[in-house]
């Protein structure tokens, strides 16, 4: 097969497909002994580049180890209104948390999921199974031989991931989690803006143990020359700000 024939042919297959097609599936369909998956992949890459260069309304993307022709983000509002709510509902927070636990710890038993989240997982698990985002991978060797859950190809597709290693790195998440715990919530931001405070100029409430050293402490520890005035001004801001912060934190059941 001529290389210039391969592109249009793959395009035809991708055009009719409703799901991502892997290079292997495409190769098998072509049934051409002279071609390798690498040929298919590079033809697909060329196709993707063409679409981008020509500014087409669709693009070739990789999800769950397969290739799929999808619309472009810029057109999403129009496509969405055309489809008029026929898109599946978003996952609930409970479902997102559950699938996050499964994704990073798979294969995993229901008990372990419940231990991590501290709540019953039965209902959420069956929703995830129904939506094809989670599958039963087998049974654990432990007592009772509990079922083991794992994510599916569909999971990768749903979150726009090509493979499991595309999941956000756990170390990154750990530091983000720390930062997030002490970031202003949307609610607080709203309230601060009402009071005329720009949230981004204010450090969120970080407890001593997790608080990075202040500029002054850092400078002193490093033995660097200290721009005292600037730092003190900062500290003053901070103190003034703490008063506003305390307004946000009423104590439940702790009235004198």
């Amino acid at each position, binding site marked *: 097969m001529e290389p210039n024939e391969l592109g249009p042919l793959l395009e035809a297959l991708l055009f*009719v497909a*409703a*799901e*991502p097609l892997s290079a292997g599936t495409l190769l098998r369909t072509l049934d051409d002994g002279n071609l390798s998956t690498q040929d298919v992949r590079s033809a697909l890459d060329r196709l993707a580049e063409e679409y981008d260069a020509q500014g087409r309304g669709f*693009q070739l993307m990789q999800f769950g180890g397969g290739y799929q*022709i*999808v*619309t472009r*983000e810029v057109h*999403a509002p129009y*496509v969405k209104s055309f*489809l008029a709510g*026929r898109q599946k509902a*978003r*996952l609930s*927070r*409970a479902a*997102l*948390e559950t*699938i*996050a*636990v499964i*994704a*990073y710890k798979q294969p995993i038993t229901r008990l372990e999921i419940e*231990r*991590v*989240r*501290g*709540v019953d997982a039965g209902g959420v698990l069956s929703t995830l199974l129904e939506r094809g985002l989670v599958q039963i991978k087998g049974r654990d060797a432990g007592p009772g031989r509990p079922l083991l859950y794992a994510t599916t190809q569909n999971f990768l*597709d*749903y*979150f*726009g*991931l090509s493979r499991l290693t595309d999941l*956000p790195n*756990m170390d990154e*998440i*750990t530091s*983000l*989690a720390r930062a*997030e*715990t*002490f970031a202003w919530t949307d*609610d*607080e931001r709203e*309230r601060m803006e009402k009071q005329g405070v720009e949230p981004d100029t204010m450090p969120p*409430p*970080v*407890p*001593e*143990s997790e608080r990075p050293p202040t500029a002054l402490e850092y400078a002193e520890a490093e033995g660097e020359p200290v721009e005292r005035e600037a730092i003190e001004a900062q500290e003053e801001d901070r103190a003034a700000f703490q008063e506003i912060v305390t*307004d*946000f*934190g*009423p*104590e*439940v*059941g*702790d*009235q004198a």
Partner: protein
Amino acid sequence: MIDEVEPTSDETTSPVGEPIYPMGPALHVPADAVQLTLLDMPTGSAVTAEEEEHPGFEAKSPLGVRLPVFEGPLDLLLYLIRRDQLDIYDIPIGHITEQYLGMLKVLEVLDLEVAGDFLVMAASLMRLKARMLLPTWPEGEEEDEEDPRNELVRQLLEYRQFKEAARQLQAKEEERRLLFGRGFIPEVEPDHDTPLEPVSHFLLIDVLKDVLARVGEEFFYHVQLEDVTLEEKMELVLGELREQGRVLFVDLVSRTPRRVHIVVTFMAILELARLGRLVLAQEKAFSQIWIYRSALDVPASMVTETSDLPAADEPVQSPEES
């Protein structure tokens, strides 16, 4: 506002200073324990005006208090740790237990159902609190004895991590939802011309009843061995279908006036349907029920367009025969 949520009658009638047994024998006890511990807290309303202003409160209750939606006890604990700027590695158990129970109380006052998971955590917190209060015996000398809070800290840190992971996944979900693939087929409006509808067993039984009614009661009982077998009738039905392509259900069943034959034929049809060797279909609700040999034997034209539906008396050729 404050008066509306003044302590409930439970509180005023319960004996003050009752010892607390959070880890009672039965699982339902912690609910009581929650009630009792609340007595230890300073009196006054559980909900203050400020609370309405509280950050993170999301759900609106009839009282106008906004409550945060917590995914579980760990989520609630993280919220409290963040709100009170506690050190997650050195949690003041007394304080957090009090706050936690206070929150549960608010949920209760608002008549929101407090899930069992929350109560289980309340119990473990109180147990932790008790363990922290116990003096350590010098002769115990177990230097390595772990801080009883460590397990909770580990759990909180791990949960916090996955909570963030969920947030990251949500962002991915949002991104992905902006990209549409093929396969969004417009939903077909329920079309009145839809040619064939599946037939329920109940309808079949209804029709059988009609047929039986038509035959009428048999008044004379002949003691006679009826040599009817299911296999025989199944063969008969299949033979009929092989010849005709399709048969009207009523015709097939009422071919013989004998009840036993009718019943066995009916059973044969059910059995063949179960085995997938014939298909029951009708043009629309309450119309004639047709029997086809199998799903493959239903002419494609019949499934898609009504106009192509052959007249009832016109035998339909199955593809295998043509």
